């Protein structure tokens, strides 16, 4: 992030390199309940990103020092598989995965009714199998569907979505080239039914007007993704399982 002036990210006809419009999202598909061993699970493909989330619990929080007497703690582990990018990623936690695990846990804690489960822990495992910019957003979306699938009470289904700026133009849902060579990235976690924002990060610079437009794009995309999430849960349970 920081802008590379000589990299062309918008075509002469005003579309983006992959042919999308400025406010067009990459295709999203969601599947709920893919892991039989987990209490709840989901797979999200967002463009070329593939994120799998598994939820376990609520269970007794261990070690006991992490227990909260009045609420549950959400333990998120975000991890990128070594084969998820073209360069092999060294397995295990790193600075980036710790940061994303932390912000994701904080976003989910504001949505889950944690006060229902004192001294408990809800474990959320997010594994990124393929990465192409926007993995934290795909991870949050997958975690939300997996939490719903596990029957965890929540205020809303949180949706992860991002906008950004390339060539001084605000665009929705950055792909890898736009993320690497663009000027700004604005991932947010949105509660589509209430319009609240559960997490927001910004990398790069946006003017107030650009920020407004980026958020407008984000809210629009969040509504679309939310419909896909609900549809995934309907397909899973109205189809005859449960």
């Amino acid at each position, binding site marked *: 992030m920081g802008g590379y002036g000589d990299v062309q990210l918008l075509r002469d006809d005003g579309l983006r390199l992959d042919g999308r419009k400025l406010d067009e999202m990459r295709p999203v598909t969601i599947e709920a309940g893919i892991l039989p061993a987990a209490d709840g699970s989901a797979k999200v493909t967002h463009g070329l990103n593939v994120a799998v989330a598994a939820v376990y619990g609520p*269970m*007794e929080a261990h070690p006991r020092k992490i227990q909260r007497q009045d609420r549950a703690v959400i333990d998120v582990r975000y991890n990128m598989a070594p084969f998820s990018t073209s360069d092999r990623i060294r397995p295990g936690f790193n600075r980036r995965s710790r940061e994303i695990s932390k912000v994701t846990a904080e976003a989910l804690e504001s949505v889950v009714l944690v006060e229902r489960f004192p*001294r408990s822990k809800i474990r959320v495992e997010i594994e990124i199998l393929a990465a192409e910019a926007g993995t934290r957003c795909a991870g949050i979306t997958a975690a939300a569907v997996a939490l719903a699938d596990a*029957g965890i009470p929540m*205020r809303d*289904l949180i949706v992860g979505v991002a906008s950004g700026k390339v060539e001084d133009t605000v665009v929705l849902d950055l792909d890898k080239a736009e993320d690497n060579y663009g000027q700004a990235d604005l991932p947010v976690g949105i*509660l*589509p039914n209430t319009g609240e924002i559960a997490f927001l990060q910004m990398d790069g610079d946006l003017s107030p007007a650009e920020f407004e437009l980026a958020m407008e794009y984000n809210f629009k995309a969040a509504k679309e993704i939310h419909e896909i999430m609900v549809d995934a849960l309907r397909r899973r349970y*109205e189809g005859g399982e*449960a």
Partner: protein
Amino acid sequence: MSQGQTGAEQRLVTPGMAVGPSAGKRAGSGIVAADNQFIATQLGWLQERNNTVSIDPIHAAYMPRSGDLIVGMVAEVRNNLWFMDINGSFQGLLPMSLAPWKVEFGAARQHMDIGDVVLARVQEVDECHNVVLTMKGVGLRRLKQGAVESLPVQHIDRVRGPNNERLQRLRDACDCRIMVGENGRVWIDGSSDGIKQAREAIHAIAKAAHHTDIDTILNELEKNMKGDA
């Protein structure tokens, strides 16, 4: 929900979904009221009974309540108490003073060891989810034979049916003693064939209870058992 459901009446709701106006109605489990609207907080089937709107959840964890009859399994033994796996978020504690035997300090293991199964009752649950169990009461005992099967907690009422009618049908069809704990553990005792049939029926119920009328599953079971005889 005691009846099996049919497709046309069901409405699956997801967390955050507005499920209707709150005026004149009460919010049941899985529902919160906000801005004169009822909002779902859990994934499940919407139901309205006795002017109360609630959610019949797809998945639910066992939340112990005082007085629950449960099937527990010994998970840890100390000098003067047992920790029981009660299929919930937390283990239940059975002190030797609430055991049905006179237990000397340090001799708890001689009465029950890890893996033993008991029929117990929840004596007390505090606000921090500490669960105390008791085995003092009619019928509460160590279960020395039979098999233990699991059933999703949200299906227990459906399996029992009104006045335990369905459970009795299942007992009669399999010729087994069957006890359904509030914690989703089912104890089955009888002939090996009967236990097998009961386990299969419970698996079928667990798999399809939201969609299929449980009476259909029981009818099928009764037909099969008659056919075998």
